[in-house]
């Protein structure tokens, strides 16, 4: 069953089309990373799911409910960390959580929630004095109230230090292990890479790619990079490597070969070096990062658009 389903969703603000005929499905129980550059339409998509804005056309369903008609039923079962939220400066963290707990008619312990998000000592401090990171943690604690079936997190790492970001990832993983679906947008790719089952890349209001990270790598053709150090680099060695099927480029620097491959195994490259008379001193492989994949999709798209 789909936890989130968008079908043909278009959203226009005057002359600007924020989302264009967007189709998206997030399956129950998965962690879905929603990527895209600033202004791609990620927050607009989430705002539609939360009924903060309404689509110009198309339908949006969350947990099988219509996002507009059944918005209350949806919000009873989801936890949200919205983008651009603001705390009540004069209320304490505990009072914020009590409000969320009363709102959902839940029985969570505010202290336990604050402990879980890493700010146990902030319970009785006014939220106006919190750093951005602490406010973000408080918002996450609010989102966790009532053990939601679906967590929607809009840029959850904003304002968090590396430790905070890691703790956020841990909580996301724990929630998924509990059986919750997690849908989160981010432009911090290592966050997404670390936890997501599937990733969608949004660009200029359109979903330009959607797959597992492995699948995206393969489809983007970003391949992997093999760095080979040889005792003596000869033109014959370079030629032999270039002839290996699947090798897309070969760069040289003194005795180091940098080989970009798509599908070619590293042993084929090493065998070619040795067959050409080279002696391999050292080698290392680097798989394309999600950064590379993301750049491949978004830059390609930019090129298409500008063309």
């Amino acid at each position: 069953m789909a936890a989130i389903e968008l079908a043909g969703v278009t959203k226009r603000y005057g002359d600007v089309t924020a989302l264009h005929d967007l189709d998206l499905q997030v399956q129950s129980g998965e962690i879905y990373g929603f990527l895209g550059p600033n202004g791609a339409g990620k927050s607009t998509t989430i705002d539609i799911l939360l009924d903060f804005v309404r689509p110009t056309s198309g339908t949006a369903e969350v947990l099988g409910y219509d996002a507009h008609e059944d918005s209350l039923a949806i919000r009873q079962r989801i936890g949200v960390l919205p983008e651009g939220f603001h705390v009540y400066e004069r209320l304490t963290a505990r009072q914020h959580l009590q409000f969320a707990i009363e709102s959902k008619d839940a029985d969570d312990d505010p202290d336990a929630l604050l402990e879980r998000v890493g700010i146990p000592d902030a319970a009785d401090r006014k939220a106006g004095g919190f750093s951005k990171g602490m406010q973000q943690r408080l918002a996450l604690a609010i989102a966790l109230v009532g053990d939601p079936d679906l967590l929607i997190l809009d840029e959850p790492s904003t304002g968090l230090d590396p430790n905070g970001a890691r703790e956020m990832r841990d909580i996301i993983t724990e929630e998924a292990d509990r059986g919750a679906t997690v849908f989160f947008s981010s432009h911090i790719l290592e966050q997404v890479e670390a936890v997501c089952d599937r990733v969608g890349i949004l660009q200029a209001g359109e979903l330009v790619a959607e797959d597992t990270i492995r699948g995206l790598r393969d489809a983007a053709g970003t391949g992997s990079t093999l760095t080979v150090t040889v005792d003596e680099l000869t033109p014959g060695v370079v030629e032999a490597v270039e002839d290996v099927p699947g090798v897309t480029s070969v760069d040289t620097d003194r005795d180091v070969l940098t080989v970009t491959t798509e599908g070619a195994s590293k042993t084929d490259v090493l065998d070619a070096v040795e067959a050409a008379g080279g002696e391999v001193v050292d080698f290392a492989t680097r798989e394309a990062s999600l950064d590379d994949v993301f750049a491949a999709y978004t830059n390609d798209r930019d090129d298409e658009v500008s063309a």
Partner: protein
Amino acid sequence: MTWPVVARRDLRALRADNSLLVYGGFFAVLAAVLAYNSTRGGLTPLPATLALLFLFAVPLTASTLTHEAVPSGVATGRVRVTLSLPHSRSSFLAGAGAARLSATLLGVVAAIVVATAVYALRGAPVPVVRALAVLALGALLAAAVVAATLALTARLSSTTVAAAATYGFVLLAFFWPVALNLAEVVLAGWGIQAGGVGELVVASPVYAYANALTVVGVDSIATTGSVPDGVGALVLFAWTVVAFALAARGFDGVEL
């Protein structure tokens, strides 16, 4: 409806930023001064003293407390926290309005307690039932002004524009007879004889309140025309219901 949860949260926030203390103190001090002056020399009855205080203080307090509730929430994103939880937009509005109404009523109650104490200490009569009737009508006036302010500001995200709209409305409510007379003159200039302009005075929440007070024997402000005594109470009720409905409709269409 989950508006009581929102109202409790907003009341906590109003208490935390000392609004309750400030406005309660404002009413109490004004009531003490007015009551003291009213019991010197020629005695002004307690209900009339309270009515005069509420006539000015209630619209100003209710509108001041309410005018930023929606625009500030939208501009800062606080409304997103509330509406990401299971609250409808109308519950958000009702809760925000109820909290501001409660804060205003706290001031009204403080005024009555202080004024009654001053009257009692100075040996002046304290007609409890009539004082409570003035309290009830003051509450109705507060509800009407809160609802009207919500209706004016429900689609706004600028607190400056909200303040201008709100205080413009309050000013118009006080100078409503002047506005009507001006309209009558302008229409006459175009050869149109407007009938029933006098009766329209009671359409202003302030003059509706004054009209309603006549039922409890307080006739501090003359409402011209031939509007029966007590109609003002119905007008205030209508303001409350219609303005809140308009506010809910307006806020429902806002993209947050």
